[in-house]
């Protein structure tokens, strides 16, 4: 088995998940210049709801594709309403406040969501119901499962849909206009509040899909999963250039590959001093390095002031 190829492949699968979450950060940042700290928790919510619904439907004997679709629908519904509610309650009143104010409420909201999830679902891990028969394929010496292929396919279709939405539709144009200049967009007849709410809705819907896929990928969901995931996705968004949609895609995939390769080879590189359980630190190192040396990210064209 080709280890290198396998690591890269794993990294790309993981990276496509990071990319989906990173899109949520990047879209909100592009429009509001706000780090939506609670986004990772929205992903967690999506995963928890999807797993719960799926478990119930699977127990009732509902056909698998239908069960998966309803789980997805439920997750999207919950995430979108939560995302829009959070925007309305915690961010909109502070839109003209000092920059740190919405960041602090964002932290508050993410704590609230996390702890509500803990109270509702408990502290134990929810396992993804075994509704999918796992088949293993071999490609050029590396293995890949049908679930992983499905994950990548769904992620690709969803993200393609997002690109079409942003580039080709009226709403997308309104979003881009609002991102460029909120006031002028308002003068041109764009209902800015509605567009911002729609951005949160779209980002949260992506988060719901990502939540389902992540639960399927790891086989578990947990009230605590959103935080680290959110940070990594944010790092991915910064790596690609925050506010830039193709950048989030690139950043997500790159981060996935770096993490996978890093976890695979860090033991050899440091002579066994650091092991694969240091996987989580790569995202943070990348984040710090990018912010220090190239704050606009790989694809970021506009340089945010002093950042």
């Amino acid at each position: 088995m080709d280890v290198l190829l396998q690591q890269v492949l794993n990294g790309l699968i993981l990276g496509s998940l990071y990319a989906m979450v990173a899109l949520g950060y990047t879209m909100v940042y592009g429009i509001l210049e706000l780090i939506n700290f609670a986004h990772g928790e929205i992903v967690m919510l999506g995963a928890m709801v999807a797993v719960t619904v799926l478990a119930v439907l699977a127990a009732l004997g509902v056909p698998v594709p239908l069960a998966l679709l309803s789980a997805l629908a439920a997750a999207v519904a919950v995430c979108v309403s939560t995302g829009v509610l959070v925007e309305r309650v915690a961010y909109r009143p502070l839109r003209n406040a000092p920059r740190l104010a919405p960041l602090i409420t964002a932290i508050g909201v993410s704590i609230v969501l996390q702890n509500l999830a803990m109270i509702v679902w408990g502290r134990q891990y929810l396992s993804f119901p075994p509704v999918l028969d796992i088949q293993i394929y071999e490609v050029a010496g590396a293995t890949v499962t049908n679930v992983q292929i499905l994950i990548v396919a769904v992620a690709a279709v969803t993200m393609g849909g997002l690109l079409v939405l942003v580039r080709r539709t009226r709403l997308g144009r309104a979003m881009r206009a609002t991102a460029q200049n909120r006031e002028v967009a308002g003068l041109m007849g764009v209902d800015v509040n509605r567009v911002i709410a729609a951005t949160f809705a779209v980002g949260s819907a992506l988060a719901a899909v990502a939540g389902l896929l992540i639960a399927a990928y790891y086989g578990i969901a947990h009230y605590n999963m959103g935080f680290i995931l959110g940070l990594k996705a944010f790092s991915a968004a910064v790596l690609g250039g925050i506010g830039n949609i193709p950048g989030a895609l690139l950043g997500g995939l790159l981060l996935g590959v770096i993490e996978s390769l890093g976890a695979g080879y860090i033991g050899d590189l440091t002579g066994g001093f650091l092991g694969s359980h240091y996987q989580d630190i790569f995202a943070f190192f990348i984040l710090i390095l990018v912010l220090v040396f190239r704050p606009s990210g790989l694809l970021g064209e506009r340089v945010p002031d002093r950042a």
Partner: protein
Amino acid sequence: MTNFLPERIYRDPRIARVAFFALGALLLVLPFVVEAGMGRTWVRILDFAMLYVMLALGLNIVVGYAGLLDLGYVAFYAVGAYFYAILASPQFGIHLPWWALLPTGAGIACLFGVLLGAPTLRLRGDYLAIVTLGFGEIIRIFLNNLNAPVNVTNGPQGINMVDPVTIAGSALTKPMDLFGIQISGAHAHYYLFLALTLLVIFIAFRLQGSRIGRAWAAIREDEVAAEAMGINTRNIKLLAFAMGATFGGLGGGLFAAFQGFVSPESFTLMESIMILCMVVLGGMGHIPGVILGALLLTMLPELLRYIGPLQQELVGRVVVDPSDLRMLLFGVALVLVMLFRPQGLWPSPVRARELHPENPDEVRQEQEALYDAER
């Protein structure tokens, strides 16, 4: 701030002196009163409250004075705690004295503050928040995993049997007899922490009014203007970071000595956020407010213990585990304070006036004057 009493009472030095001594006497007998009224657990809670006052005042320098949002503050706390624990426990069989370890631990934490601050302080506020948060996580991941191949931190189990602070040859954790009065470990630590807290409060006050403190305020209000006034913003920001980290490291060392045990569990992001809550809830940049915030947030969660039995009585069973409610309420408090009282519960008079002027025209006039100046 409104004065509750006639103005002359605040001016009279004799009354001030009496009040000072009364407060001092109250602080001295407080642990005995608390023990008599509420039991020994509350003396320990009091000790922790004091520890958090120190930490919150340290973070207040970074967040309140200099306006830099630091979400990884707990990293410095962890560095101080682990430095003490490693060099004063059976972990390596090293037992250095506490009076050497506490200041050096604070110094090491300060060094970490500079290490983190030097590359990142160019970043704008929200990026800085995320980077510091990442730094906090990196430290925690290392603490969790540095048990192999060389066992430095003993991994998730943490380090046990950390040496307590000893005074005149007797450990502070053991009960002792002083002039016929029984003094328990919790009481002895109360006095130690009280002394250090007063020291920290004194330093914080002196810093605030100093040239450095005014430079911090200037940077917080307008960095570009501050730079134009000849302030070396990079160094001054770094100094804020380093000072905050120093207090964090000191708190960490005390925590290790007091608790006798450290593990990565104690240094999660939630801890950072809790300390941030204390600063924000109390009133950023206002020392009495921050102290109030720290005291409230250490004491109030303890009251949640009584919610369990209360539920039992009302509903017949425990619906929500009280300890689960703690962080939830912190989150709600953060959001509500930011939305409805961004200046905090006890803000500095200047801040309060900026955010809620008594005379609304004042702000408009000021803004108009600025507008004219810009033209």
